[in-house]
């Protein structure tokens, strides 16, 4: 399998994207931004379609649209945006826009499939470099801002009263999210970015109660899921995203059962 260049690229890019999504996902879940992430991926879809329409690289369009909306949401306030109504309006608006741009350009079917469902075979060396670069930027910023971000994500009132610039942290995090979504869309597709960003993190909570532990477990689950998806997809020709989401969902259910068992064991010990 590794004799093919595209599989090597897919593994490198997929692994990096998984680490990034797993790590950032812990904060996405803690800040209750799962559906904002989902919305970002649809905005990204419109951006990619727009890029194709005007003839620039999809990644350019993805970044343009998602970063612009991150700034917009930052202006408007995350609380307002997180409302169900705002999310449905914006999500459907951008999905519609994406469809419009696609119909205006002539590159329809293939491209639509790959941007919605992800594509692994289409990755070339240049994409790999872009993904490597952006992932490193995101992970570095996460590491440097880790303490601020974790205070604000897990104890907002505390962070505000300790004088942290919570507004900037919020906007900064939205920007990181928009970059990671843009990168991840190219691999797992717009419809399932959300899965890679939230399910491993949700599962990680069942296995550990330390913040760093959650980041670690979440990233590991995401990476294993992507590897599993790539290998299975190579041998069966079924889409990668199907295997990734099944793997993560399984991890989540195992996590819940594990948590139950641990709790029962603790109770038993107490008695």
């Amino acid at each position, binding site marked *: 399998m590794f004799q093919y260049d595209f599989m090597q690229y897919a593994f490198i890019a997929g692994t990096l994207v998984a680490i990034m999504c797993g790590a950032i996902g812990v904060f996405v879940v803690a800040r209750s931004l799962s559906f904002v992430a989902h919305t970002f991926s649809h905005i990204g879809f419109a951006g990619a379609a727009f890029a194709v329409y005007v003839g620039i690289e999809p990644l350019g369009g993805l970044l343009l649209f998602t970063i612009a909306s991150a700034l917009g949401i930052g202006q408007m306030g995350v609380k307002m945006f997180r409302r169900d109504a705002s999310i449905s309006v914006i999500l459907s608006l951008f999905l519609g826009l994406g469809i419009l741009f696609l119909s205006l350009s002539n590159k329809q079917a293939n491209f639509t499939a790959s941007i919605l469902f992800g594509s692994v075979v289409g990755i070339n060396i240049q994409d790999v470099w872009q993904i490597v670069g952006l992932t490193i930027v995101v992970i570095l910023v996460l*590491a440097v801002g880790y303490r601020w971000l974790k205070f604000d994500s*897990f104890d*907002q009132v505390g962070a505000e009263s300790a*004088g942290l610039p919570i507004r900037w942290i919020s906007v900064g995090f939205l920007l990181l999210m928009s970059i990671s979504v843009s990168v991840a869309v190219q691999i797992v597709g717009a419809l399932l970015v959300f899965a890679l960003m939230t399910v491993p993190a949700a599962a990680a*909570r069942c296995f550990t*109660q330390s913040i760093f532990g959650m980041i670690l477990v979440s990233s590991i689950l995401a990476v294993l899921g992507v590897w599993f998806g790539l290998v299975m997809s190579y041998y069966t020709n079924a889409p990668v995203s199907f295997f990734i989401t099944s793997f993560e969902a399984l991890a989540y259910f195992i996590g819940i059962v594990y948590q139950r068992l641990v709790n029962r064991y603790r109770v038993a010990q107490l008695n």
Partner: protein
Amino acid sequence: MLRQFQVDDLQVSFNGEKVLNHLSFEVFPGEMLAIIGPNGAGKSTLLKVILGMIHPQGGAVRMESDKRKAVIGYVPQSRTIDEETPIQAKDFVSLGLPAKIVPWLSQKERVTVKKAMMMTESLHLAKKPIGRLSGGERQRVFVAQAMVRHPDVLLLDESTANLDPNAQEQMMQLVQRLCKNQGITVLFICHDLHMVKEYSDRVLFMSRRHYETGSTDEVLSGKALEWLYHSTDDEKPKKTGLFREQRDRVTDHLF
């Protein structure tokens, strides 16, 4: 005596409604100052002004620490703890550490966290998820989070509310120890006059238009008592039977 800080002619209003109206008082280092007064009097607002979270329309808070800016630790009145976010108490405490660029905790910081949890008698809770702690345990962890910054001043906003009498005593004793042993100046908002009587050195009484500071005995025996259950807005206290009864009960407790 050197002052820890001075609150000078503070004025704060929200949407044109005056909440703090020319409030002035002093705080001395190492004392425990209780802040009492009816709901909506502006007690929490006052703490937020001292913290710098709210900018007053007039007046100022003057810190009189000699060399550096005084570090203030704060335990807010309410806090959203997501029961679904099972982070450990020790992680929660370490959130309060002064921010740094290095993501991991240094050895020294670990010791600081441990010490803060020891001081607040919460070390045995270190590995428990914060969402599963009882109210009293949680409050101790909150105080520990405020302590990791090595504060000069500690602001507690109703930290004993919702605690059973035993836990209240335990909490106040703990705060008193922090105050006396570490020399931390404590301002605490409390509705339980029993606790105020027992643990405060001085009292600030606040209602919308009437402020009074003095030693605990002075304030609690003075006019404040009458204001306490009546008139957030300067009506003459109505001397109803209920009021008398309530007042007598309170005074019985106290004297």
